[in-house]
């Protein structure tokens, strides 16, 4: 990270919305870490006298259909969902970014071949892919995250390739090529930094999809198993009872929405910070058109 980037980072984080978003993420992380120990309930403990009841002084978020404390379970769900989102996005980023950049830069037959592989993976039935992964590698939650990442990189690769096609004929890339820079060097030093912006924005877009895909896998019996839980599972269960027990949907959905809003906002800011074409004072003014 050079000085200009650091300065942009500092500048960017002074904005109140950015602080709010950072605060929300910090709160969610703290909540996930601490809430289970302050609630007074185990996440798998059943309160036999209070099944599916609304929030009160002993159960801050109410209880679920089996009489378990929702406050504690939302926190436990946060642990799973945040881990899923981070790991899957990381896997998706690590595969999708270079894949798209290389295909876009080299072009021609290699590009064709790489993009057709993406097409093939797109069209394959996702359910079977995951069932098979689990059959081959066993039932392991981390494997599940990797599987989700390994499937969600496809969109990212397409977007990055699209961006790269636009950049590869730019003067600075041509100049580097004329100076005899190697392809890996150009991809690493010129292309990746330039496509980082859309890639980051896109990755933040995939996070909700990944979290919700996890709930579907759990339904299939391939994801987290009771009494463990995740936001996806809590929301899916809550959606079914949204009329009779609205708190079962409201609390996990609010946590998910707030977290995603913050992640998206920070994703946008990071994009600005890492975009080498922007100097500190060189941001277009709002409404400058």
């Amino acid at each position: 990270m050079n000085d200009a980037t650091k300065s942009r980072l500092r500048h960017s984080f002074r904005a109140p919305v950015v602080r709010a978003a950072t605060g929300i993420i910090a709160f969610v992380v703290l909540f996930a870490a601490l809430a289970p120990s302050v609630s007074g309930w185990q996440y798998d403990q059943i309160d036999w006298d209070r099944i599916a009841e609304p929030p009160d002084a002993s159960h801050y978020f109410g209880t679920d259909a089996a009489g378990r404390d929702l406050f504690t379970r939302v926190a436990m769900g946060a642990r799973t969902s945040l881990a899923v989102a981070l790991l899957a996005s990381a896997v998706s980023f690590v595969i999708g970014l270079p894949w798209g950049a290389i295909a876009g830069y080299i072009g021609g037959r290699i590009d064709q071949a790489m993009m057709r592989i993406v097409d093939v993976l797109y069209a394959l039935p996702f359910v079977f892919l995951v069932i098979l992964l689990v059959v081959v590698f066993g039932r392991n939650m981390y494997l599940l995250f990797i599987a989700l990442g390994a499937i969600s990189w496809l969109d990212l690769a397409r977007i990055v390739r699209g961006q790269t096609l636009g950049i590869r004929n730019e003067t600075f890339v041509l100049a580097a090529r004329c100076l005899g820079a190697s392809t890996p060097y150009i991809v690493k030093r010129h292309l990746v930094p330039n496509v980082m912006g859309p890639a980051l924005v896109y990755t933040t877009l995939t996070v909700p999809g990944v979290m919700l895909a996890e709930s579907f896998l759990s339904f299939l019996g391939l994801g987290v198993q009771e009494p463990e839980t995740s936001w996806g599972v809590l929301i899916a269960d809550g959606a079914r009872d949204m009329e009779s027990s609205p708190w079962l949907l409201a609390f996990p959905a609010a946590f998910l929405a707030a977290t995603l809003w913050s992640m998206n906002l920070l994703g946008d800011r990071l994009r600005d910070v890492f975009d080498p074409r922007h100097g500190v004072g060189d941001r277009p003014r709002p409404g400058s058109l």
Partner: protein
Amino acid sequence: MLAHVLTRLPILLGTFAVIVTAAFFLMRLAPGGPFDDERRLPPEIEANLRAAYHLDEPLPAQYLRYVGMVLRGDLGPSFKQKDFDVNELIAAGLPVSLTIGGIALAFALILGVTLGTAAALHRDAAGDFTIMGFTALGLALPSFVIGPLLGLGFGVMLGWLPAGGWGSARHCLLPALALGLPFLAAIARLARGSVIEALAAPHVRTARSKGLSRHRILLRHVLPGALTPVVSFLGPAAAAMLAGSVVIEQVFALPGLGRYFVQGALNRDYTLVMGAVIVYATMILAFNLIVDLAYARLDPRLRVRS
């Protein structure tokens, strides 16, 4: 352009063949079979069933049989919906999915690009935060939450639109809205990001300094280049919308294609899933081809190359 499409044709057909082959074998490797059910099935009866569907043959022979059928345009009988063959099921479901998906696509694209551009133009102002907050909500609330909420509000409580089912134009609105919303949100975010970038690009600055009108700059110089990420996203997204969504179809009791991917897979209805994969693969390949062609249109830098 036609020449370009024609040169791509062999590759597309090859990709298609790889998809069909991979899907065929992938499905057979998964545990469970079409006849594992709650009720008792004595072994001799299961043997009768397996023989009737040629499942007793070796896998390569089944594959060749299937490819032969597909080449003749016959997707075979459905394992689960025994009174229909897969051709009939797709013919019944595809129009439903295309209608709902088409409305959702138009709505998500038009509104998404508009909102994204508006947010970019008012960057960091109140409008930007409102729009981005709305899109975050659209992304965070899954369709299995939005769908029932719409059905409950407009169908049960207000009684303005049918709560589910298929039949008239009024039946399309709620599902299309629920289907399009997350895509709208994603398109708006992508559009916002790239419009902001394009506003800072030299050619836009040049255009501005030439004193061109805002409108003209936006439509002629900013949007075409800025839309490439949206267009990349749109290839697979359009295919996903048009091929039908299992959640939306479930929530609104729609007889579309989407359920055949998931329910077909859960039922191990091999021929039906293959039929759905073939439809979906066709859409993916077609849309990605269109996207590649659109790149050239949208980005003048690429026109030089070809």
